[in-house]
């Protein structure tokens, strides 16, 4: 938790989409989450899109929340065709039902096919979508802050449930939308649920540097990863942020040998196996994968790893039993959760509301 600590903890996360498209989705997701939690992972992501079969990701992870105790839960929620006010309320509510374990992977909806599902507007170019996604992240933070932590007073003598001086209109004016506020949901347990941005696409990098608590990158070598991490840190600093509060995780597609791995739309080769001479994927040799994670992390290239299994039900148990166990054996990964919130796991402090009087304590 102390930022000056010389030891830089390793962070591990995994993707669990796509889930079942029907009623089996609940049991499947709970089973995977328990495996991830047993392994002590920081968080699980659940990808989502309006164009791929699957249930609403935030819904699935809300269903998982009461069935788990510690693991962070990070659904993808898109910002292009949704209402920013609903997005922030749903993520804040996931934080409440998980008692402080929510995150949100910000994503955009590209293309005419998804726009036609809503019929509200044509999809702008990708750069504009990410600009808007940044604004949604910005207004979400403002709305999460729009209730100060001590706004609820229950003061019987004056008959007041809240101190309304501690609730704030956010009066956000974005380039394409505006929101009045305050939020309908009291400030979530973490203050700000964790914002995750996949910074693989160059268009998303600026939004990641400015808004993300966790940035996901892809890189073919430790040098490339270190370069991307430094670039994100520089850009974060340029936005007035403390780069020490930005975690950069390497997204790694993974599968079993002899089976096709996760296809990588960015065109990056996979540093952890797929591009290797054997064509085997990384999970074939859990100890070797642990070795590589340790080397990349120890060398300062990344803060951790985000595993994207080709088949989560098959690959996640193997990752947990092999690679995570090896990392734990070497003392490089937590053997138990020390904190209770996702921010705790990531070593990120709970932010003070931007509307709190200056000098107020967290």
């Amino acid at each position, binding site marked *: 938790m102390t930022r000056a600590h010389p030891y830089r903890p390793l962070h591990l996360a995994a993707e669990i989409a796509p889930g079942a498209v029907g009623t089996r989705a609940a049991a499947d997701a709970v089973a995977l989450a328990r495996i991830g939690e047993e392994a002590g992972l920081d968080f699980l992501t659940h990808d989502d899109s309006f164009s791929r079969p699957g249930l609403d990701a935030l819904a699935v992870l809300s269903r998982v929340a009461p069935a788990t105790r510690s693991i962070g839960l990070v659904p993808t929620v898109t910002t292009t065709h949704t209402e920013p006010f609903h997005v922030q309320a749903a993520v804040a509510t996931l934080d*409440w*039902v998980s008692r402080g374990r929510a995150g949100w992977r910000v994503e955009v909806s590209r293309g005419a096919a998804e726009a036609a599902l809503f019929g509200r507007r044509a999809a702008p170019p990708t750069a504009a979508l990410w600009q808007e996604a940044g604004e949604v992240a910005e207004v979400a933070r403002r709305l999460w802050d729009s209730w100060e932590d001590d706004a609820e007073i229950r003061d019987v003598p004056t008959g*007041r449930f809240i101190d309304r001086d501690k609730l704030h209109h956010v009066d956000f004016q974005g380039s394409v939308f505006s929101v009045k506020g305050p939020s309908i949901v009291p400030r979530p347990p973490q203050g700000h649920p964790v914002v995750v941005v996949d910074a693989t696409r160059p268009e998303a990098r600026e939004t990641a540097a400015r808004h993300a608590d966790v940035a996901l990158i892809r890189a073919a070598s430790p040098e490339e990863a270190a370069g991307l991490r430094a670039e994100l840190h520089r850009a974060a600093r340029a936005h007035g942020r403390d780069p020490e509060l930005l975690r950069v995780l390497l997204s790694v597609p993974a599968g079993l040998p002899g089976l096709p791995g996760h296809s990588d739309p960015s065109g990056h080769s996979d540093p952890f196996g797929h591009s290797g001479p054997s064509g085997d994927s990384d999970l074939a040799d859990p100890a070797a994968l642990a070795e590589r994670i340790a080397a990349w992390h120890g060398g300062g290239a990344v803060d951790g790893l985000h595993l994207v299994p080709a088949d989560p039900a098959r690959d996640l148990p193997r990752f947990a039993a092999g690679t995570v166990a090896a990392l734990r054996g070497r003392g490089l990964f937590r053997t138990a959760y020390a904190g209770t919130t996702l921010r705790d796991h990531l070593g990120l402090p709970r932010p003070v509301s931007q509307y709190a009087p200056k000098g107020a304590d967290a």
Partner: protein
Amino acid sequence: MTESRPARKQIHLAAHFPGVNSTTVWADPRSGSQIDFSSFEHLARTAERGLFDFFFLAEGLRLREHAGRVHDLDVVGRPESITVLNALAAVTDRLGLAATVNATFNEPYELARRLASLDHLSGGRAAWNVVTSSDAFTGENFRRGGFLDRADRYTRAAEALATVRELWDSWPAGGERRRFAHDGPQFRIEGEVTVERPPQGHPVVIQAGDSAEGREFAASAADVIFSRHSEPEAGRAFYADVKGRLARYGRRPEELKILPAVTYVLGDTEAEARERAALISRQQVSPQNAILTLEQVWGRDLSAYDPDGPFPETDPDPESTLVQGRVRVADPFAVAARWRALSEAKGLSIRETVIEATGRHSFVGTPASVAAALEEHVATGAADGFILVPHLTPGGLDDFVDRVVPLLQERGVFRTEYTGTTLRSHLGLPAPVWKAGTP
């Protein structure tokens, strides 16, 4: 004592999470958090222990304001409904899970997807209370603003619901996903859904509008009506009116359940129950809330008045914008005249008048007399059941489930176990007809 009687009409019961209004008493030592998940879990588990049909959540899209400031006298703040219900699906097995979701500030594609997801994740227990907004005040929180004309509310609600059902039908379970295309005055959309048809076929649809259009919409398309008519006589008139509208849509009376929202107070004796009811009313109408309630009708700043003093002489301002985010009082002059008459006739102060006029509990008595009254209500065609609105979070239903439910079961008017797994089965609703898509 019941065995020789013919089968009695069964009562349906639902639980309403205490709302952000003065019915909910927060200034009581037993009052817990309105936002912690444990409160929702307690109330939902209690409802399931009581074998209720469903658990109901209202929706908030903008905090209510009074004179340009956030209203501070009632409970404020609540979670987003569908997300909480998905979490509750993990801690309940049979209880229906009903979300109020606005059809003005959501599009059919996301409504269909989120409600289908809830239905899958709960194994067929989802319900959607369809509401709309036309006020620019709420619209200020949304991209699309408050464009909707008041007269178009049901046009939009009806087309949204029909479209959502088309989407639910576009991917039969285990079958082929088909493209949908809807081209109507409100929505012009096409594509494919990402979720298979929900386990219930269509999640249960609830409707709460009371106007003629609202009743007609419910008769044409809803499975359940959330009714405000808890009084027996008004209840019977409403019940007969709405059920009478069903035939023209080819529907039978039992295909639409009418459930009024009701409050209750129990005591070991009738006198004790009445005493408790009076105490709760005084908690609900605090001195500050009495003035505020008056201001909501009058539309004027009445803060200079003493809540324990006489009634104001001034008349309501019909053009007032003092109150935002609440349903407007339809005829403030009539309400003001009625209340003034009440105050004068009984010599009541402002607060006493407000308590007398608004602080009525639907059912007050011993568990036995309340059980009898509930049965009577249903047997005489005033309702098919009730949505119970407790005044305390989260323990407000405990005594009802412990003391009244067993008596209803003894009377043979309430289930002694769940016989089905879906909300449709609890409500005795037929499976929806599968409709082939348009293209």
